[in-house]
């Protein structure tokens, strides 16, 4: 007896005989809708998926490659079945770029907790300010400490970020995904640029971004600069988050409007799936599946974790309780 034999025995013990009701599945096949309807469904669905792909959510909803290596130890229980919580982090890693070497580490510039309820109707995206001073649990050899939330990623990677957020919020994170600078740029370019309303003239030396007041269409590079822009207004992360949310909302709106054209949709998906790493499971059929469940979703609601200045250092912030807990309770 060898291991394969033991495995086959186990399989035999686990096996069930098909029930008579299996025949119902045959009817599903013979009553399948005519082809045209299916294509229509596919396109609406894809547009919806592509919409959400703009914030890179569905890649993960569709089980992208970067699934969470589950943090060790106790984790919050998954309460509502069918609901999904996806953590999307935007990092400043510029793999392959001359100026930013991987050795310099990467920080999470943007942290979004996206909640998809079981009915996929009212999607909520919660921005977590990177300047939040929080209790970061022990991750590997790095001891627990009070620090800025974005340091969790730098020192402990994705798993530590997930662990930190799960400990803080008691929200179970089902999936997570990392979008780096290049991915973001490519998504915006694939959308054919994104239009935003500039309320305050921008002249930023770091990103060489210059934008006069008014409605402006940004290409990928510009959108990235705008996304990262800190030295504008009062220079706070909170104001930046507002700009990021406006930008994401504009991207989603653009996606919804333009991706109904199959040609553009195809080039968008090609770009999105290239720059946001996905696995083989991320094919059209898989997308269509989720898409159908999301096709009547509205644009996500963007909120920020309620906060107040952090007493020891007014340049940092602390989560305001009990408001923050009340917000997260709704996502559990």
């Amino acid at each position, binding site marked *: 007896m060898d291991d394969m034999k033991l495995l086959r025995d186990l399989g035999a013990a686990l096996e069930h005989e098909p029930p008579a009701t*299996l025949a119902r599945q045959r009817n*599903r096949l013979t009553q399948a809708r005519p082809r045209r309807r299916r294509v229509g469904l596919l396109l609406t669905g894809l547009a919806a998926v592509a919409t959400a792909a703009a914030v890179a959510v569905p890649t993960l909803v569709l089980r992208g490659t970067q699934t969470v290596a589950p943090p060790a130890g106790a984790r919050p229980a998954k309460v509502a079945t069918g609901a999904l919580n996806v953590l999307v982090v935007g990092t400043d890693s510029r793999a392959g770029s001359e100026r930013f070497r991987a050795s310099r580490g990467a920080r999470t510039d943007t942290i979004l907790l996206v909640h998809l309820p079981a009915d996929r109707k009212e999607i909520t995206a919660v921005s977590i300010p990177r300047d939040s001073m929080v209790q970061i649990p022990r991750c590997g050899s790095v001891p627990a400490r009070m620090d800025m939330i974005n340091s969790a990623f730098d020192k402990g990677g994705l798993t530590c970020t997930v662990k930190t957020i799960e400990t803080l919020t008691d929200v179970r994170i089902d999936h997570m995904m990392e979008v780096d600078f290049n991915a973001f740029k490519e998504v915006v370019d694939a959308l054919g640029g994104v239009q935003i309303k500039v309320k305050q003239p921008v002249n930023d030396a770091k990103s060489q971004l210059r934008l006069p007041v008014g409605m402006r269409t940004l290409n990928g590079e510009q959108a990235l600069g705008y996304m990262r822009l800190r030295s504008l207004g009062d220079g706070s992360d909170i104001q930046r988050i507002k700009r990021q949310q406006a930008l994401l909302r504009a991207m989603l709106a653009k996606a919804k409007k333009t991706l109904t054209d199959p040609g553009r949709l195809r080039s968008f998906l090609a770009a999105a799936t290239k720059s946001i790493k996905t696995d083989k499971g991320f094919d059209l059929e898989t997308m269509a599946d989720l898409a159908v469940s999301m096709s009547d979703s509205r644009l996500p609601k963007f909120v920020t974790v309620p906060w107040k200045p952090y007493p020891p250092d007014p340049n940092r912030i602390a989560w305001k309780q009990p408001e923050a807990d009340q917000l997260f309770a709704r996502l559990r």
Partner: protein
Amino acid sequence: MITQPATRGADADLVSASWTQPEAFAELFDRYSAMLYRYVSKRLGPEPAEDLVGETFLVAFSRRRSYDLAYADARPWLFGILTKLISRHRRTEAARYRALLRAPVEDSVDSPADRVAAGVSAQAARPELASALAALPAKDRDVLLLIAWGDLTYEETAQALGIPIGTVRSRLNRGRRKVRAALGDTNPLLDEEA
């Protein structure tokens, strides 16, 4: 290995017939739904199995025009689709294996005379097997189980997963090595007899 009776036409003929007569596709369901059901029931249990089998055929049907008619046997194609669908149920699968860990091992204190040596040995190894399966990376588990539980050959597994046959071999070896390590790298049966 499951072989097809020579009397009936190749699956590929059914698929190509279904391009013009969609009803022909139902014959594929009659041929393979039970086999696919048994396979899913091992990995995910009976509850999701029925729906997944239906889903597999719907996906297959929608892709029937891209079927490579050079392959007479449609099983690898169907198993490939099913594998992708199963991968969305990783939690269910993991929970299923974990449940086996908790289940009491029966007969472990029965008198030796009642024992069917091989059966006891297989049953005693069950928790180790289950935890090894739960711990395997999904890609390795897919390969291992397509071969052990789906009765596919190496070539068919390669075809099902769209990977080179060398990759099938290396994933299988890695999976088996871990399973054997979980079993203590000993052969329980031989140990008992020693």
